[in-house]
């Protein structure tokens, strides 16, 4: 494999005696859209600031395209950061904000004008060049912040919650624009977000951070279908977690007695006496979500199970006893503790665990 665009190698950071990053390893490939995903306080922003050079790691190294930049101050790094609230200079016009990063490196005047106009055009802000940042909307400010960071042609573009300050409709549109922008520039993007839907939609790969540690790195599909830890299984999308193959009155088709996960859409509602069902449960509520019907069931042991059924083909009356069916391939084995990414697919299946037939 070629040299990674960004490599954080065993990065740790303490704040006031508290470890906020614990030996974080991240490898971002050239031209990749990479997201650091995690709940607030998981250390993702600190990780980004360390890459940008705004914070120094206590342990570990950071290299960009093979060059060690751990000791390089922020203003000499080939990275640029899009700050959470934009952090535009209020005393400079939109044009001067974008030109700022070129003027610091003594670019020729004519080239500055050309590159600034080009980038303002790319983010659709060309007509606002003379405006003061204070007169722009949140979305417009965020675009200017992106242009300002991209105009320097960074080797890695860092984005700190770039969309979180925007309202939902704009967020959805900006996701696509962000992805398009990344494809167009071919720059490696590293985006910090707490929004798993956003990360899944725009990223090539995602690293899930929890309490300062990388729980799993992979594509959205990998994270969704083969979560490497309980945290990932619960944080990415919705999941029904079971302590073992025979738990909560169900008998799941799995050759494993540890933690198992079944997505709500993987369960199928069947007749209570259906031979293929893995157990029965009582319908507690059913909500129409358009294409899907969200059914909340309760098993004999009082365990709540979420099922997403196709809305057109399903009828589920509250109080009705139904059967639950699930294919063996849809039952994910979840390692109890976080394990390195490479070890996930080979997670050992215990020999002593007898294959259990789906109960009638």
């Amino acid at each position, binding site marked *: 494999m070629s040299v990674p665009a960004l490599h954080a190698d065993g990065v740790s950071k303490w704040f006031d005696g508290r470890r906020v990053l614990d030996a974080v390893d991240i490898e971002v490939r050239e031209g990749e859209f990479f997201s650091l995903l995690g709940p607030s306080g998981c250390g993702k922003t600190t990780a980004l600031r360390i890459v*940008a*050079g*705004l914070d120094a790691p206590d342990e570990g190294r950071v290299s960009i395209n093979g060059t060690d930049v751990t000791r390089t*101050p*922020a*203003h*000499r790094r080939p*990275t*640029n*950061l899009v*700050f*959470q*609230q934009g*952090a*535009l*200079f*209020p*005393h*400079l*016009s939109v044009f*001067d904000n974008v030109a*700022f*990063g070129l003027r*610091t*490196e003594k670019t020729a005047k004519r080239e500055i004008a050309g590159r600034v106009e080009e980038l303002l055009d790319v983010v659709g802000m060309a007509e606002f060049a*003379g*405006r*003061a940042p*204070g*007169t722009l909307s949140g979305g417009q400010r965020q675009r200017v912040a992106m242009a*300002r*960071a991209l105009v*320097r042609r960074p080797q890695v573009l860092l984005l700190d919650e770039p969309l979180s300050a925007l309202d939902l409709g704009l967020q959805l549109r900006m996701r696509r624009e962000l992805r398009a922008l990344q494809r167009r520039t071919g720059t490696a993007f590293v985006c910090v977000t707490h929004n798993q839907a956003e990360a899944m939609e725009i990223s090539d790969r995602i690293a899930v951070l929890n309490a300062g540690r990388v729980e799993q790195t992979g594509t959205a599909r990998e994270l969704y279908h083969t979560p490497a830890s309980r945290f990932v299984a619960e944080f990415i999308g919705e999941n029904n977690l079971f302590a073992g193959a025979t738990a909560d009155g169900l008998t799941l088709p799995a050759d494993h007695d540890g933690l198992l996960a079944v997505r709500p859409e993987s369960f199928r509602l069947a007749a209570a006496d259906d031979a293929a069902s893995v157990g029965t449960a009582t319908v507690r509520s059913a909500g129409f979500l358009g294409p899907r019907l969200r059914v909340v069931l309760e098993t004999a042991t009082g365990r709540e199970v979420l099922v997403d059924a196709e809305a057109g083909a399903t009828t589920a009356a509250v109080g009705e006893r139904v059967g639950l069916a699930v294919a063996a391939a849809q039952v994910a084995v979840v390692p109890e503790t976080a394990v390195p990414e490479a070890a996930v697919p080979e997670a050992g299946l215990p020999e002593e665990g007898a294959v259990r037939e789906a109960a009638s």
Partner: protein
Amino acid sequence: MTGHDKAQPPAPVAARRRRLIAYALVAPGTAYLLLVFCSVILLLFSYSFRTERSSRLFAPFSTETWSQALGDDYQLGVLWTTLRVGVVVTVLTVALAYPVAWCLYRVRRWWVRGLLGFVIFSPILVSVVVRSYGWMLLLSPGGLLAGPLDGWLYHEPGVILALVHVELPFAVVPLLAALRTLPPGVLEAAADLGASPARRLRSVLLPLTLPGIVAAAQLVFALTVSAFATPALLGGGRVTVLSQSVYQNIQQLNWPLAAVQALLLLAVALVVLSVFNRLSRLVDVRQRRDRKGTIA
């Protein structure tokens, strides 16, 4: 200040009541300031057009005192010294106060901040006279600083040294307030965009804290040109500024000349303060914005 609620105008009666309360609250302070200030200015103005004859006010209107104050080399020298000391002290004080304010702004630990604040602001708790005597002790023969700063006492450098010390806390306050209004992240953004520390200071920090710098300069200048005790004690009669000259003339019962010099002092302060205002408006782009939000 009238208590109006923009979003939803209150009922008329309530509005009238609120306005009355607002006036009642504003009235005493305003009346006090206006009565005392205006009456004194008027009195000074009328005095300045009279002359002094054998220690008595000579009534008929005359511009003789004005021409004496503006035509005499000694009197002009006093005016010039006042201006010079004012400008030098202002520049030095603001330049010294800026890093101090920056330090106070950046210190994270609450007890360090408290301690630093106390050290910087405690001089205000001690009388100016006491502090000036302190400087005299330090600068007089045998004093701690008499060696390296030989000859500063009773000369302009000594006066400036003591005045900078006296005014320093007054410059730190507006500078600190300006630093606290810095939008989050702009300095880090500048660093991220390749700006060296010097460049960050020049292109981001100074322009954004300019209102605070102007406020600090205005405050220090106004306090310096009207300072009396410090120049009187450390100047030892050899460095005379307007406020001392006013005092001396009153002592000699030359009220007209004292009035002229008091008005000159006021004029100097007003002119310099308005120049500061003009300058800051020229430099501060945010105030040059037109209605469409375009920066000229």
